[in-house]
């Protein structure tokens, strides 16, 4: 019996080995035979943007561009398909194959696996920051500053988080700053003026206490996922540190500037200044960020809490929860009682001109045909970005800012973005998962009342190794 098992085991291991070898072989073949690659000369030859002058369709070999994006929902899904169809109509030698994949699946599973297996797409979702730096280190992403320099220049500073050593390896098509989303009905029922939001930290504290006295949770926080808690400390750091210190941390993993410990002390100051040291909704640690009516977003839109510090997408999330709770059609616009104001400056801080947020972008694979970069240039062209903005999104092409519908809540964050001197990507995204995750854990523990400001900085430095 035993010998039989052993023999079986050997057979199984041999078969496993054979399969591993076969698997590797497949990868090699897949890697050696990707979608048609352009020759070197065309790859570095900047071609005009399709919307400006249609490139001559003749004399170009048929080429297929695969495009993976995260727009699984409508209207974005159809919008991207329409853009691809337009691009193909203008460039008949190109075929565009689109795959829409849910954001986290695409980011954590599908793209890494595709990069490993050598069958990566030509144009794909890109979140910038530390993740993009890893891709660049592996030689996976194309230097767009060489291929579509006009587009890179036109998008400007908002694309900094997609640039490495001054060269663009991706470009954002939307970017939104983080800030306070406010339920003005709750705000006003606490006796506050919703046409006059707090401009300083002291004014914010006053409003905070007034709302708490009126019996509401002043600020909703969904701590369950960690990152919403992280955003509080990030903001303290972004408003405490100079842009040079922020860049040193992002680019060189250098957190030696004393502003980082000061950021924790300022955070502590905020937490203890309001509502007798109970700044957030009770049980915030076990509250989810944006899932359903009991989440932090739900508390704001259902009138249980007054405001939440969150990214621009929150208005869509709150609108969805509101529509669901009130049996409204899912495409109903977000309720008009939601408004927005930016994080106030911290007195004595070095980051008054700084702003933090995040966006969605695309990168082009190193081996992709140049048409993939041309498609990206088309996506960021005035015409496409204007239509994208008209769907009530914040574009990155300045010529499309005016296309956001009048009265949109997105106009307020957009104004803050236009006035910002320096734009910092979410710190966890900027540093990548290896540092971002333990950083958020340490911040969550710190805001929960444990440890010291130094402990948070130590956790970040330890994780960076």
């Amino acid at each position, binding site marked *: 019996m035993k010998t039989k098992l052993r023999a079986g085991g050997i057979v*199984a291991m041999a078969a496993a080995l054979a399969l591993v070898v076969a698997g590797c072989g497949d990868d090699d073949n897949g890697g050696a035979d990707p979608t048609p690659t352009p020759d070197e000369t065309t790859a570095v030859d900047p071609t005009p943007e399709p919307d400006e002058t249609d490139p001559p369709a003749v004399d170009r070999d048929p080429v297929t561009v695969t495009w993976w994006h995260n727009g699984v929902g409508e209207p974005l899904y159809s919008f991207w398909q329409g853009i691809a169809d337009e691009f193909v109509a203008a460039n008949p030698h190109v075929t565009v194959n689109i795959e829409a994949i849910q954001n986290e699946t695409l980011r954590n599973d599908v793209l890494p696996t595709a990069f490993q297996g050598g069958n990566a797409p030509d144009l794909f979702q890109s979140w910038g920051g530390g993740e993009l730096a890893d891709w660049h280190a592996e030689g996976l992403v194309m230097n767009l500053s060489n291929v579509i320099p006009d587009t890179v220049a036109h998008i400007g500073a908002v694309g900094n988080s997609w640039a490495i050593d001054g060269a663009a390896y991706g470009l954002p098509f939307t970017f939104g700053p983080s800030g306070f989303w406010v339920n003005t009905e709750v705000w006003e029922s606490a006796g506050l003026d919703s046409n006059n939001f707090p401009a300083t930290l002291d004014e914010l504290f006053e409003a905070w206490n007034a709302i708490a006295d009126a019996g509401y949770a002043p600020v909703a926080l969904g701590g*369950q996922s960690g990152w919403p808690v992280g955003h509080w400390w990030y903001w303290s750091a972004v408003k405490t540190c100079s842009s040079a210190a922020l860049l040193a941390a992002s680019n060189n993993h250098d957190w030696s500037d004393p502003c980082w410990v000061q950021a924790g002390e300022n955070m502590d100051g905020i937490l203890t200044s309001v509502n007798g040291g109970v700044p957030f909704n009770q*049980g915030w*640690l076990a509250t989810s960020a944006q899932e359903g009516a009991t989440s932090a977003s739900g508390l704001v839109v259902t009138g249980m809490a007054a405001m939440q510090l969150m990214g621009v997408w929150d208005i869509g999330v709150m609108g969805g929860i509101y529509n669901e709770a009130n049996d409204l059609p899912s495409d109903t616009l977000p309720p008009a009682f939601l408004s927005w104001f930016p994080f106030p400056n911290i007195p004595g801080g070095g980051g008054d001109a700084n702003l933090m947020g995040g966006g969605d972008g695309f990168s082009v694979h190193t081996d992709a045909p140049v048409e993939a970069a041309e498609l990206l240039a088309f996506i960021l062209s005035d015409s496409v970005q204007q239509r994208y903005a008209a769907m009530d999104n914040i574009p990155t092409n300045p010529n499309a800012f005016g296309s956001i519908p009048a009265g949109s809540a997105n106009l307020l964050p957009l104004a803050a973005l236009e006035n910002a001197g320096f734009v910092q990507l979410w710190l966890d995204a900027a540093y990548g998962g290896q540092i971002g995750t333990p950083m958020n854990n340490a911040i969550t523990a710190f805001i929960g009342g444990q440890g010291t400001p130094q402990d948070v900085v130590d*956790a970040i430095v330890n994780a960076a190794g």
Partner: protein
Amino acid sequence: MSTQVETGDPRAAKTARGSSPIVTSRKKKVTWKRRVEVIGFTVPALIVYVAFVFVPIGYALVMSLFDGTPISPFTNFVGFENFTGIFTAERQFGQPFFWDAVRNNLLIAVASLAIQGPIALGVALMLNRRLRFRRLIRLLIFVPYVLSEVITGVIFAQILNPNGALNYVLTEWLGLEGMRFFAWLGQVGDGGIGSATFWVVMAVLTWKYVGMAIILFMAGLAGVPEELTEAAAIDGASYWQIQRKVTVPLLGPTIRIWAFLSIIGSFQLFDMVWILFGGHTLLGQTGMHTMASYMVTMGMNRNMVGYGSAVAVLLFVFTLIVALIYQKFILSRDLGSDSRAIRKADQKKARADAKAAKIAARELTAAETGQET
């Protein structure tokens, strides 16, 4: 005739030995056709098994020797550094701790047996009697087990939310004002039996999995011959005596296999806690990580795929050791996989067969002698 038996007629001896068919002559007839048949049936299963069990195990094993990233897992060879890192790790501010996760798995395994076992046995014994609505009750008990872990996790996450239904009931209906925003799943600490959150998780796990134990036990009870309980009743045994001395001992194999499945399930627990706690942050802050959730956190959320793979290998080894020990010492009685046990059983059967043959022969002889006289 009597002489035939007494002199050991081969046919008579074979008849007396009885049960085992003669296979010697058939063995020679194993043709290539039969071999193709055997190969045809086993190879597809073997390929699937190898591809989806052995290859991933080997892959994880190799990956655990590197300090790679999700996009290039096989870069930066570090040998067994990931493993020594796990064993020498110290608690760090705000970060999940591997040995908390190991302890949680062990506690969940023990607590599942201690809580679910008695409940399931009691309910199974109750449902084994003739009851009204027995089928309905059985269905209701089994429904939680049929629900997917994700659905169960989402439902309980909503109920146990600080703004959720449970706290509403406790405050608005029962007047327990102190429970208004109680975070059932958010008690910060290192977890373990001192944490309220641990027992909340145990309650959810019991709700989810006790149905499986009950159904298994009921199936086991259906296999207990009525004659035995009837005989015991006729001998004057009370209901409880019958259950204790007859039914439960005969349920032994079922209980042992359930306990085995429960222990393995406890070691591999992932989806339920992950959904219930909404990901790794809250699991880490409450010290409620399991080995599997710790593995995913380190491997996928922290992008340390080598370290995560090392945790996966350890989880595999732990589970394998527990499974082997359990099989060796407890399940062997039921499965008969232990060769010594088989040999013993064979010897016992041979002795019994010989005895039966002797008795048969003696009886036959006696009958024939009786006839003759």
